């Protein structure tokens, strides 16, 4: 009810204070001041960093500018992950603001994808939505939508319009009453210490017996190491949107309310800070 709506709003309007600093190796005419920005958690880097680019271009010569890319403490930041996921994964327990280094040269082709324009971001975003809906409704809902509806979703995200986005997105959050939930829950589990980029498998929200699955059930299934054994202190944190939901939170509810705009539940497993 009102809580649910508040949750949705808080999730949408979440911000991360960031400072962008130009890499020292970049050739500049003058010294560049850092640029501070509140990044939306649910958006993507290349969408929201136009001002950053403009700021730093003032001090650079045009011929030195190639594609802009970001890195944090040596790790190139993948723009196709939501910003919130990047922060939670890499810098969740560090001092704010989040310091990102801006590069204009030496694009790491092995680590990052190129993003020449916002339409690339749009394509990635829409494909994520479709993938999520394939898991949730066998793609029925997203296929019933018209092209303008898809556009509305994208425009809502791009222009940071909560109501415009959720006017369409609510359709994707519906399910037939007899089912009790989606067909499968779309989720991705990111781990800091892992070879794999993320874990994504089929998982039903309701057990065949009729029990509602919770977050704990999911973690037990997917990444049992994340959960502490009995008696042991907690070694890992299960973070979604910068918070740690209780393990008994129903998965269905999580998927409906704590999903990112791309309808996926992005879960970060990070080691508990020892301080």
């Amino acid at each position, binding site marked *: 009810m009102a809580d649910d709506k508040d949750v949705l709003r808080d999730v949408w309007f979440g911000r991360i*204070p960031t400072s962008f600093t130009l890499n020292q190796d970049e050739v500049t005419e003058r010294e560049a001041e850092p640029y501070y920005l509140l990044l939306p958690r649910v958006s993507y880097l290349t969408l929201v960093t136009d001002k950053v680019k403009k700021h730093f271009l003032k001090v650079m010569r045009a011929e030195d500018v190639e594609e802009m890319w970001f890195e944090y403490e040596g790790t190139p930041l993948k723009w196709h992950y939501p910003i919130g996921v990047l922060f939670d994964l890499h810098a969740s327990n560090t001092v704010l603001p989040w310091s990102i280094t801006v590069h204009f040269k030496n694009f790491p082709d092995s680590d990052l994808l190129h993003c020449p324009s916002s339409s690339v971001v749009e394509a990635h975003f829409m494909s994520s939505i479709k993938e999520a809906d394939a898991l949730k409704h066998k793609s029925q809902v997203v296929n019933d939508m018209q092209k303008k509806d898809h556009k509305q979703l994208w425009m809502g995200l791009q222009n940071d319009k909560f109501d415009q986005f959720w006017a369409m997105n609510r359709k994707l959050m519906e399910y037939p009453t007899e089912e009790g939930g989606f067909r499968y829950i779309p989720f991705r589990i990111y781990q800091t210490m892992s070879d794999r980029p993320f874990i994504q498998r089929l998982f039903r929200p309701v057990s065949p017996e009729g029990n509602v699955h919770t977050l704990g059930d999911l973690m037990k299934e997917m990444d049992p190491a994340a959960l502490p054994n009995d008696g042991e202190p*907690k070694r890992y944190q299960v973070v979604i949107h910068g918070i740690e939901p*209780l393990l008994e939170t129903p998965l269905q509810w999580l998927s409906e309310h704590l999903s990112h705009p791309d309808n996926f539940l992005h879960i970060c497993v990070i080691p508990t800070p020892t301080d």
Partner: protein
Amino acid sequence: MNQPGLRASWPTRPAVLTDPAGVSERSGRVLAPGGGGRSAESWKKDIVRQLKHRDLSQHAMFQDLIRFYTQLLEKTSLAKGILSCSVRRPSSDSSSSVSSLLQRNNQLKKTTGELAYQVVELQQQIKIKECVLEEQHARLSEEERRLAGVLDARQELQERVGQVQEKNGALKMEYDVLLERQREAETRLREEKVKEGHLLEDMIHLKKQAAARMNSRNERRSRARQANLQKELQTAARSKVTVDSSSSAPTSRSTSPKKENHDPESTEKPHTRLFRSASATSPRILNSIRELFEKRRGHSVCSLEEDLMCPVGICVSARVPVRARQALEAHEQGINAVRFSSSSDLLATGGTDRVIKLWEVRAGSLTHRATLEGSTEGVTCIDFNPTGLKILAASYDKSALLWQRDESVPKLTLTGHSRKVTAARFSSLPHQVVTGSADRTIRLWDLHRAACVQVADVPSYCSDLVCSENSIISGHYDCKIRVWDTRTVSCVQELPAQGKVTSLDISSDHRQLLSCCRDDCLQLVDLRRWSNDRMCFRAEGFKCGSDSTKAVISPDGCFLAAGSADGAVYIWNFSTGKLETRLPDQHSSSISAVSWSLSGEHVVSVDKRGLAVLWSDI
């Protein structure tokens, strides 16, 4: 955790069952293992709380800071921008900043000047453009005016078109009406034509019937004649005929000429010779020829022996009639002509009813003998030939007809005149007839050929004519009497008359000519004397009744008789020149003709009512 099956739908959410187990607070972020005893809302509240905390720590604290920083950055960059413009001067010389400023000032002034000049130029261009625009506006308005004018003209033309179309429509309607009428007229015409065809057929049929009737009658008559002929031939073959040489009594003639040739011939020759010209053929030769060709010539018109045998009587003395012996309704309509035959007491009357009736005068009464038909209009004049066997009549139908005495159908019809024939006489020459007509011609006809041999043009309407040997005398409406020579048919003499000549009569010795004129005067002219002695006879009460009133000389030449308009017969004495007697009270209408019998005994007068009165002196 047991959860009731909730359908998570945004924003309408059905009522959430609240677990009355309450909400347990949790501190920190330590997760409790399992989930026994927690309420349905606890995790949610926990999440809400965590989100709020996060926002507080992450978002809210830095929000204002970053905002202000960004603003400051913008301001500095602006200032930098402005400064950098001036810093682009040779930055090593700081003292020259003032001079550089002055220079900059000058430059700015120059640019101002240039800009002002540009402004002026642009204004001029604007003015030019405005002029062009005005011109175009003017042209546009003119075009619009022209267009309006043209539209008006078009409107007018359309109205005219409408009017013309209306007229056309009206004309078309009239035309249709006329067409209708024409069609009706045509159908009527066709009907009339059909009727005409029918009428023609009927008429033709009737005429055919009349012709058939006529043919049958003719046939019957010819058959009857044949039969008669046969009978008489037979009787004549047996009986003896005695010829009576008395002059006044007509000889009982028989149509069979065979036995009679020789006897009367010798006695009658001298008389006949008086009236024959030298061109008559010799009888002797003819007799011999006759014997050869007898049978063939039995019924021909010009049978010579008939002509030869004409005993002509001479009246010794005429007696003045005193009283009427008989008054007879001779004809149904007016009688125009009456004539005694020269050889017997046979009277012929003819008039408007188109027939000629032959009467025998016997014992003081008229008995009807025969009716001669054939004239299609009224009869004007009747003449007997000297033998009395042929009757000639002039008719209104522009022809003269010739009958044999015993045949009621005319033997000949002499046509050629263009108007009514007023007089027809046998000429002194045999087989010749003279006719005078209202068409101002006198024609001579040959009976052999039944054709007109000569035409004499006269200047005036010929009303009557008489023939004497060698001459024809005609009377005309121009008050003249003309004498013509028979052979040359040219006018040899013109005698004046007192008025319009209505009739002529010649005395038996051909010496005296009586003319009756319209001015009620009878004139007697002596023909032999070229001094033209004339005697005029008038009487009180004598009025000429019509343009064709006939007057006669008595056979002995002593008396003149004429009928008057008052219905009385006037008789003058020639020698005394005075009225001898007046015979009134018989006729109720104007007398048209009188005739004196050859014997002198009888006078017959006929009037316009059809009454014929026989007068005699006894």
